[in-house]
């Protein structure tokens, strides 16, 4: 169990002039839920495509389930399940027919097919709809069917590329319930990409990727702890006076955010009693927040992920164009 299930060394992928992945290294342990977090166009999908043998790296190497993604392509493929960002179902076939098609392509033995199909379809709550044509499914049902299909051949690693993109919040959280439930039922490693901070919280470990490079890699808790400071927000009788006093007495840079005096401090919960004791301004309310992954992303890249989405658009488009040409 000690051998990493995904091993990436010095991976580089260039599409013409665009360098989508610029030399990344990481390992994923068996049984982990590992997340790739970054804005669109950061290189997440390119990396996942290389790991799934859909694209060859320009340089560097990658091993999945112990096999080289270039030299042992088909062995890698047998050991992985894929759920893509864009749907890859035949909407003219029924859910069951889609799974049968998959089973035949992956060589799932016929004797095992029926019980396994029932199992994965029940896992995603689609057993009752198996005979409906996929074209009649909702977006969330389609994604669930893809997850069931990705699991059908009992892969060692399940790759989920933006598994919840384009779904409404409620469906998104239900997809996560299925994914977390899956961890209970199957002996599997999950590798996923996302640009939703809240979803990254579901991962055992996260790699933050920006401009084709990994800038941080750790558990969500450790990453947040590495930022160090909690966010404290207070409201007082005279906020301007409070800001001045915070600066003079505690050496803290505070500012008004969301109508509240806001500042960052290590161990916020220990600081608050001091604040009450020493601040001359009467305090009307106080809140202490642990750093979020948003703060983590910001501390490593200097931007929020939403800022990156806005400015990363052009880069992303250039990459998409290169991808289309290459395809």
């Amino acid at each position, binding site marked *: 169990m000690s051998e990493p299930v995904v091993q990436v060394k010095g991976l580089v992928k260039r599409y013409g002039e665009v360098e989508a992945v610029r030399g990344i290294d990481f390992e994923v342990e068996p049984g982990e839920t590992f997340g790739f977090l970054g804005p669109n166009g950061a290189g997440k999908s390119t990396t996942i495509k290389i790991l799934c043998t859909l694209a060859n790296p320009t340089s560097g190497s990658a091993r999945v389930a112990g096999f080289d993604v270039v030299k042992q392509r088909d062995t890698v*493929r047998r050991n992985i399940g894929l759920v893509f960002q864009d749907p890859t179902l*035949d909407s003219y076939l029924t859910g069951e*027919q889609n799974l049968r098609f998959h089973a035949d392509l*992956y*060589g799932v033995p016929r004797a095992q097919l029926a019980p396994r199909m029932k199992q994965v379809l029940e896992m995603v709550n689609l057993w009752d709809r198996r005979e409906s044509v996929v074209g009649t499914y909702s977006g969330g049902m389609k994604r669930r069917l893809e997850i069931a299909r990705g699991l059908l051949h009992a892969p060692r690693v399940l790759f989920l590329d933006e598994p919840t993109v384009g779904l409404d919040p409620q469906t998104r959280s239900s997809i996560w319930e299925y994914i977390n439930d899956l961890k209970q039922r199957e002996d599997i490693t999950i590798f996923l990409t996302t640009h939703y901070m809240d979803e990254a919280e579901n991962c055992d470990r996260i790699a933050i990727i920006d401009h084709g490079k990994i800038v941080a890699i750790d558990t969500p808790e450790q990453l947040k702890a590495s930022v160090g400071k909690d966010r404290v927000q207070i409201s007082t009788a005279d906020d301007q006076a409070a800001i001045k006093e915070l600066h003079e007495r505690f050496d803290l840079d505070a500012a008004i955010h969301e109508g509240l005096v806001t500042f960052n401090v290590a161990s916020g919960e220990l600081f608050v009693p001091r604040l009450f004791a020493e601040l001359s301004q009467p305090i009307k309310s106080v809140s202490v927040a642990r750093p979020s992954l948003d703060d983590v992303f910001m501390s490593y890249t200097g931007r929020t992920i939403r800022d990156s989405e806005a400015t990363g658009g052009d880069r992303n488009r250039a990459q998409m164009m290169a991808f289309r040409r290459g*395809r």
Partner: protein
Amino acid sequence: MAIEVTDRDSASITDAIRVSVPDKGLRQDLRAVSIVWRRELIRFRTDRLRAVTSLVQPVLFLFVLGTGLSSLAGKGLPPGISFRTFIYPGVLAMSVLFTAMFSAASIVWDREFGFLREMLVAPVSRWALVLGKCLGGTTVATFQGLIILALAGVAHVPYDPILFLTVIGELLLLSFTITAFGVMMAARIKQIQAFMAVTQMLLMPLFFLSGALYPLNGLPVWLTVLTRFDPLTYVVSPMRQAVFDHLSVSPVATALLDPGVTWAGWTVPVGLCLGIVAVMGTAMLGIAIAEFQKTE
């Protein structure tokens, strides 16, 4: 080596079903050929509209053109032969032509709707996928041809088992070659609009130059040359020969209407005609497989 993914930590995993995926091999590839082929059949069966629309054109040619032009063309035909009988082999070829091409177009659709990706990432040989697709198109197109074949009586062609078997064999060959041609193009042309435009641009000349609507002899030199370069010619002529063999026609009339394919005065035997088509189909299948072999 068989990869076994099972309940290794049986305590924590409630009800995992033992699934062992076998090693890649010919058996797996053949299973892939079979499922890709069957998918074409399932889709054809559920898509009745497509079956009906692709029948419209050949039926129009047989009934409307065949009847309308017979008063004009009939004057040049020997007694006892109707214009409808003459163009019947061409109409058969036509029915197959469009269906086979539409089957190949489904690859472009699959690419657009993502399903192609599901196939391309599977641990099977690409040749299996391409071959399955070609066989699917071949079956579906030949089936479409069978519907026109059932209308033989309308064209005064006898329901003779030998004739039918011969024609079905030739339709299978034609369907295969056209599907292979379409799949080869689908490997390169990635937008459905572009694919349809190219198809339209190619199919009509293929049909008109094949001698489906006129005899191959006594043509101006330029047209003679063009007909000899049209692969469809090498199927339409053998089919017409099969039909004429089962009609009571004078040798003079046969020589006039069914002269066979000639190269500078030499009559190309039926076997060679069909061989040319088979070689072309196989070559295009090979190119298609090579095209789909590429990784980004």
